[in-house]
C-alpha cells in the first residue's frame, strides 16, 4: 500500500511538472487566426493528457527499477502475479472513454475550423513549381504577395499547375494540399495584424521537387483600410501597366511564377537571373555561348530544355506554352528594362 | 481423401458447371435489360462461392492430419494452407485494381466488344469445368482422364489468352481505347493485363503437371502438384468472375 501512495503522489507531481514545462517551452508560433485558437486549445488538452500518461507509465517504471531492483547475491524469483481481469478491463475501458471524448472534441474542433462564412473573401491560389500566385476575382487583381484584411474570413480556391503542393501559414495553423486537376478549398479567419516589416510566410508543405524549400510567399494581414488601399494601388498599377509592354510583361512574369525562380536584382537563385540578361552572352551546357537576344529569350520561354545555361542543368523549368506571341514579347520587353 | 465415387464426383462438377453457365447467361441478360449493379455483384458472389467451395474445395483446409510430420499427407495439408494464403495475398492485388477501377470509372465502363467478352468468359468457365474433371480423375487414379482434362484446360486457357491479348486488345486499340488514351483505357489494359499474366503462369503450371502426369509421377495418393495447379486455375476463374462484370457489364458506356 505504501508503494501505491508514493507512486500516486509522484505521478501527480511529475505530471504537473511535465505540463508546466511543456507550457513554458512556448512551442507554438503566433496565434494569428480564429482556427489557431481552436487548434491550440485542443493541443493544450492533448498536452495535459500527454503529461499525465507520461507520468502514469514512467513513474511506476522508474520506481520499480529503483525500489524493486535485484540486490547483490539475491537469486530468488519475483512474486507470481499473472494478471487481473478486472484491472485489465479497467485500463481498457477508461482509456476507451477518454479516447472517445478526445475524438469528439476533435470533431467539434474540426467543425469549428470548417465554419463557413458566406461573405468570405474569395481568393484564387495558383501553385506551381516553385511559387504561389494569388488572384482576387472581386477586384480583378493578381499578386505575388498575399494580402488579406484582418477579422474577415477568406476562402482559398486553390489549383496546381503541375504537382501536389500544400498551402500552409504556420501562424494560421491549418493546411490544405493543392492537387492538380481539382480545386481544393481552405477557409481561414485572420485575427491579428502582421507586425510591419515582418510578414508571415505561406510555405509549400508538400514535397514538390528540388526547390521545395524555397517555395514561399509573404503573407500580410492588414486592416480593412490598408487592404482597400493596397487593392486600389494594385488596380491603378494594373491599369497603368496594361498600357505598356514592359508593364504587361512584369505582371505576366509575376502571374506565371517566373519571378519565383528568376531573380530581377542579380541575386543567386535556382535559375539564371534576369538582371542585365538581355544582350549578354550566355554560356550553355554544350560549351557554346549564345547571345541573349529576342530570339533566344523567346525560345527559352517556350522550349526551356533546348538551350540550357551552364550550371542550371538539373532544375527543369516548365514550358510556358500557355503564353501567346504578344505576351512573350511583353515579357521580353520587361526583361530588357532590368539593367 | 473423400470417398465419394468417381461418377458422383464427375456429376457434381457438371451440375456446378451448369449453374455457373446459367448464372453467367443471366448476368449478361440482366446487364442488357436493366441497370442493376447490386444484383450483378450478388450473382458474381454466388458464382465465386460455387467455384471456391465446389471446385477449389476450400473445406479441405479443415482436413485432419492422418500421419506424422514427415508424411506426404501432413505435408500436403501444410502446402494447401500455404497455397490458400498465397491466393489470399494475391487477391489483394486484384482487389486493389478493382478499387482503382471503381475510383476512376465509377458507374461507367469502356466501350468493348460484348460478344467477344462473353466468349472469352465462357471459354474460361469451360476450362474450369475440365480442370475439375482432370483433378477428379486423378483423385480416382484415372490417369487418362486426367491427361485429357488437363489438355483441354490448357488449350482453352491458351484460347482465352489469345482472345484477350490477341483479339480484344487490338480491337480496343482500334476503337481508340489505348493505354494512354485516359483512365478507362489504362484501367482496362491494367486489369486484363494483370489477369492475363496470371493465366499465363497458370498455363505454364498446367504444362508442367501435364508433362509430369504423362510420365506417371502422380497417383491417387500423391498428386499435390495437380491439386495446386487446379486451385490456382480456379482462382484465376474467380478473379475473372468479378472482372468480367466490372469491365463489361456494370455502368453506363463512356
Amino acid at each position: 500500500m505504501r508503494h501505491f501512495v508514493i507512486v500516486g503522489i509522484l505521478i501527480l507531481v511529475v505530471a504537473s511538472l511535465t505540463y508546466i514545462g511543456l507550457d513554458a517551452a512556448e512551442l507554438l508560433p503566433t496565434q494569428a487566426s480564429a482556427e489557431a485558437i481552436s487548434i491550440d486549445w485542443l493541443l493544450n488538452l492533448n498536452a495535459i493528457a500527454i503529461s499525465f500518461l507520461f507520468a502514469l507509465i514512467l513513474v511506476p517504471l522508474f520506481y520499480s527499477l529503483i525500489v524493486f531492483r535485484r540486490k547483490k547475491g539475491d537469486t530468488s524469483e519475483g512474486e507470481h502475479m499473472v494478471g487481473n481481469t478486472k484491472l485489465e478491463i479497467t485500463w481498457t475501458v477508461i482509456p476507451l472513454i477518454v479516447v472517445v471524448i478526445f475524438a469528439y472534441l476533435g470533431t467539434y474542433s474540426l467543425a469549428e475550423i470548417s465554419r463557413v462564412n458566406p461573405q468570405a473573401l474569395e481568393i484564387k491560389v495558383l501553385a506551381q513549381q516553385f511559387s504561389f500566385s494569388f488572384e482576387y476575382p472581386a477586384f480583378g487583381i493578381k499578386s505575388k504577395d498575399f494580402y488579406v484584411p484582418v477579422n474577415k474570413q477568406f476562402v482559398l480556391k486553390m489549383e496546381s499547375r503541375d504537382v501536389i503542393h500544400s498551402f500552409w501559414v504556420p501562424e494560421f495553423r491549418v493546411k490544405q494540399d493543392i492537387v492538380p486537376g481539382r480545386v481544393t478549398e481552405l477557409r481561414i479567419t485572420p485575427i491579428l495584424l502582421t507586425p510591419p516589416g515582418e510578414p508571415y510566410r505561406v510555405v509549400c508543405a508538400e514535397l514538390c521537387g528540388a526547390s521545395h524549400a524555397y517555395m514561399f510567399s509573404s503573407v500580410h494581414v492588414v486592416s480593412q483600410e490598408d487592404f482597400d488601399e493596397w487593392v486600389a494601388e494594385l488596380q491603378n498599377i494594373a491599369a497603368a501597366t496594361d498600357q505598356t509592354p514592359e508593364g504587361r510583361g512584369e505582371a505576366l512574369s509575376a502571374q506565371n511564377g517566373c519571378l519565383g525562380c528568376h531573380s530581377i536584382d542579380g541575386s543567386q537563385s535556382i535559375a539564371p537571373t534576369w538582371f542585365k540578361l538581355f544582350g549578354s552572352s550566355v554560356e550553355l551546357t554544350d560549351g557554346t555561348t549564345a547571345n541573349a537576344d529576342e530570339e533566344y529569350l523567346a525560345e527559352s520561354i517556350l522550349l526551356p530544355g533546348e538551350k540550357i545555361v551552364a550550371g542550371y542543368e538539373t532544375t527543369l523549368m516548365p514550358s510556358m506554352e500557355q503564353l501567346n506571341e504578344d505576351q512573350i514579347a511583353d515579357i521580353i520587353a520587361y526583361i530588357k528594362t532590368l539593367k | 481423401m473423400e470417398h465419394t465415387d468417381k461418377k458422383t464426383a464427375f456429376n457434381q462438377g457438371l451440375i456446378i458447371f451448369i449453374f455457373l453457365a446459367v448464372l453467367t447467361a443471366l448476368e449478361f441478360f440482366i446487364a442488357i435489360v436493366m441497370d442493376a449493379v447490386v444484383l450483378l455483384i450478388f450473382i458474381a458472389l454466388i458464382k465465386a462461392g460455387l467455384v471456391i467451395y465446389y471446385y477449389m474445395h476450400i473445406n479441405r483446409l479443415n482436413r485432419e492430419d492422418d500421419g506424422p510430420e514427415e508424411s506426404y499427407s501432413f505435408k500436403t495439408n501444410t502446402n494447401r494452407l500455404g497455397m490458400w494464403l498465397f491466393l489470399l495475398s494475391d487477391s489483394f492485388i486484384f482487389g486493389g485494381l478493382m478499387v482503382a477501377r471503381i475510383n476512376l470509372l465509377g458507374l461507367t465502363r469502356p466501350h468493348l466488344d460484348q460478344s467477344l467478352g462473353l466468349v472469352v468468359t465462357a471459354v474460361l468457365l469451360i476450362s474450369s469445368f475440365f480442370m475439375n474433371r482432370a483433378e477428379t480423375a486423378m483423385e480416382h487414379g484415372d490417369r487418362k482422364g486426367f491427361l485429357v482434362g488437363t489438355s483441354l484446360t490448357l488449350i482453352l486457357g491458351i484460347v482465352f489468352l489469345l482472345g484477350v491479348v490477341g483479339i480484344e486488345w487490338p480491337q480496343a486499340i482500334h476503337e481508340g481505347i489505348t493505354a494512354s488514351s485516359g483512365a478507362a483505357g489504362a484501367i482496362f489494359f491494367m486489369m486484363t493485363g494483370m489477369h492475363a499474366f496470371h493465366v499465363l503462369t497458370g498455363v505454364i503450371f498446367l504444362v508442367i503437371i501435364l508433362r509430369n502426369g504423362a510420365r506417371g509421377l502422380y497417383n491417387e495418393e500423391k498428386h499435390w502438384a495437380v491439386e495446386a495447379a487446379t486451385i490456382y486455375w480456379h482462382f484465376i476463374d474467380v478473379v475473372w468472375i468479378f472482372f468480367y462484370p466490372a469491365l463489361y457489364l456494370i455502368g453506363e458506356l463512356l
Partner: protein
Amino acid sequence: MNKLKPIWRALLLLLMGGFVGYALGVGLDALIGGTVDFVAPISGVFSLLGSATAFFFGLIGYRGITKGLVYQIIGTFVGAGFVTAIRAFMGLETFGSFFFTEPAWVFGGLVGTLSFLSGVGAFADWYKWAKGESTPEHHQDPEGFIKYFGVSLDHKIIGIQYTVTSLFLMGVGGTFAMIFRTELAASRLQFLTTTFKAFDQNGLQFYNTLMSLHGMVMIAGILLGVAGMINYLAPMLIGAKDMAFPRLNAFSFWIAVPGALLLLSALFLGGFDTGWTGYPPLSTRSPLGIQMFFLGVYMVGWSSILGGLNLIATVVRLRAKGMTPFRLPIFVWAAIATSIISLTATQLIGLSFQLVMFQRLFDMGFFDGTRGGNPVLYQHLFWFYSHPAVYVFVLPGLGIISELLPVFVRKPLYGYRWVAMSSLGIALIGFLVWAHHMFASGLNEYLRVPFMYSTLLVSIPTGVKFFSWVATLWKGKISTPTPMLFVLGGIIVFLIGGLTGPPSATVSTDLHLHDTYFIVGHFHGTIFGGYVFPFFAAIYFWFPKATGRRMSEKLGKLHFWIMTPSFLVMTFAMMRVGLLGMRRRIADYDAMLGFDLTHLITTIAGYLIFISVAIFLYNLFHSMNHGEKAEGNLWNSRSPEWLVPSPMPVHNYDQAIEVVGEPYDYGLAGSKYVDFTNNK
C-alpha cells in the same frame, strides 16, 4: 593475395572492383556522351555492382552470392540490351543520359533480379521439381562462415542472413542521414548547393535523393530485420525443426538482396525527389532513379509477403505438442499479427508503385488529372499498406519487449492473454486507419472523422501493452544487463512516440502538424522504441544462442548510454522545430526562424547515435570469435531454446518437445513450460 585473410582480400578486391566499375562507367559514358563526366550515373551503378561482386569473390570465391551478382550484372545487361535492340529496330531512341533508356533499365533490373536468383541457386530445387525430379528434404550446408553466403534452407542461417543484411542496409541508410543532417546543421546551403554535382543531380536534388533513400533503405532494412528476428526465433520458440516452407524461406531472403541493390542504384541513376512516399504526379516527373526505387521496393515487398505466408503456415502447422494458442510465446503472437499485415497489405504498395511505373513506361493515365486519373487514389493504395507497415515494424519489437521483460524481472508477463490479443488488435485496427495520412490531401471531408476515430482507437491496445509492462515490472526482482537496458529504453522511447500520436491523429491539430518535423520526431520515436531498441535487445539476448559466446557487457552498456540520451534529445528537438513551423523534407530553412541551434543539436545527437551503433557493430563482430563463452542457459530463461546447449544444433531439438505449462510462470515453484520426450 591468397596469403591474406579472406576479409582483407575481400576489402582489397572491393576497392579494385569499385575502381574497375567506375572506369568502365566513365568509359561507357564517354562512348555515348562525348564529354567525360566523372560522376557519371552509370559509373556509380558499375562501382556498386562491381565492388559488391569483387568483395564477395574475395571472401568466398565464385559461388553463392558472388555467382548471383555476376548473373545479375549479366542479366541486367541482357535485359537492357534486349529492350535497346528492340527500340533500335523500331527506330526509337536507344541511348539516354543514363546510358540505357528508362524502359531498358526497368526491364534490365527485372531480368537482373531473376538472374541473380537463378545464379545464387534459389530456384534450383523448384526447377528440379518442375522437371519431376525429387530433392532431399534438406541440403548439407558447408562448414564455416561460407554457409551464410549461399542458399541455405536452415531457418537459423536464413535468420542470420536477414539480420546481417538488415544491419548493413540500416548502416547505409544511417550514413545517408548523416550526410543530409550535416547539411541541416545550419541554415542556408553549405555543401549540397546548386553548384554541387553528382550523378546528374545538383545539391538540392541530391539532398532529396538522400532523404528519400534514407527513408526507404531504412524501411527495407527494418523489414529484413523483422524477418530476421521472426525467422531465427519463431521456429525455435514453437519447437519446430524449421519453417514450413524452407525453400520459399530462402527465396524470400535472396530476392531481397537484388532488391536492395536496385534500391541503392537509384542513388546513381539520377536519384528521385519524391520522398519515400513517391506521390504522383511528382513521381511521374522524377528522374530515372524513381523506377529503380519502385523496382527495388517491389522485390523487397515480395520478400515480406512470402515471409509472412511462411510464418503463418509454420505457426499453424508445426507447433510442438501441447502448445495451445494461449501457450504460444508472446513474440510468436506478435509475429502472427505482423505476418497478417505483410501477407496481405504489402500487395497494395506493390500495386501503387507498379501503376506509377506503368504510367511512366506506357503513358497510362492512372494518376493524371487531365486524363480522368486521380492523384489521390495513389495515396489511398499507398497508405493502405504503408500505415499498417509501421505495425509490421513495431509489433515484433513490442513482442520482444514482452518476451524479455519476464526473464529479467523474474515474474510472469502480466495479463498474457491481453497482451497477445492487443497485438492482433493493433494489426486489425491498423487496416482501417490509413487515411489519417491524408487529412490535408483533399480527401472527401466526411471521411476524415471516421478515420480520426479509428486511428485514436489504436491507442487502446497499445495502452494495454504499456500497462501490462509496468505491472510486470512492479514488485519484480529486476536486474539490468544490456538486453534489459534496451528493453527499458524501448519502452520509454516508444512511450514518447506513442503519446505524440493522438495529436497527429486528431484532424484539426493534424492540420498544423502534418508534414512538419513534429511528425518526423513522432515516427522516429515509434520506430526507435518499437523496433530499434528491441532489435538491439534481441541481438544482445540471443547472440549467445547463435554463437555460443556473449557480447561484451561493457561495450553494450556504453552503446546504450550513448544512444538513449542522444535519441531523446534528437526526437524532442525535431518535435520542437516542427511545432514552431519547420516543414519536412527541406534542404534549407530560413535563419529568421531561429532554428539553427536546435538543428545543430539534432545533428550532433544524430552523430552520437551513429557512433554508438558503430560501437555495437564492433562489439558484434569482435564477440563472434573473442567473446566470453556462454553455452548454457545464460539468462536463466524458461524458453525451450535455452534448455539445449548453444550454439543451437542444426535441426534445433534432438528430442521432441511437449508443452506442459505456461510460458512465463517465473516465481511459481515447481512449474515447467516444456518437457523433452523421446517418443518422436
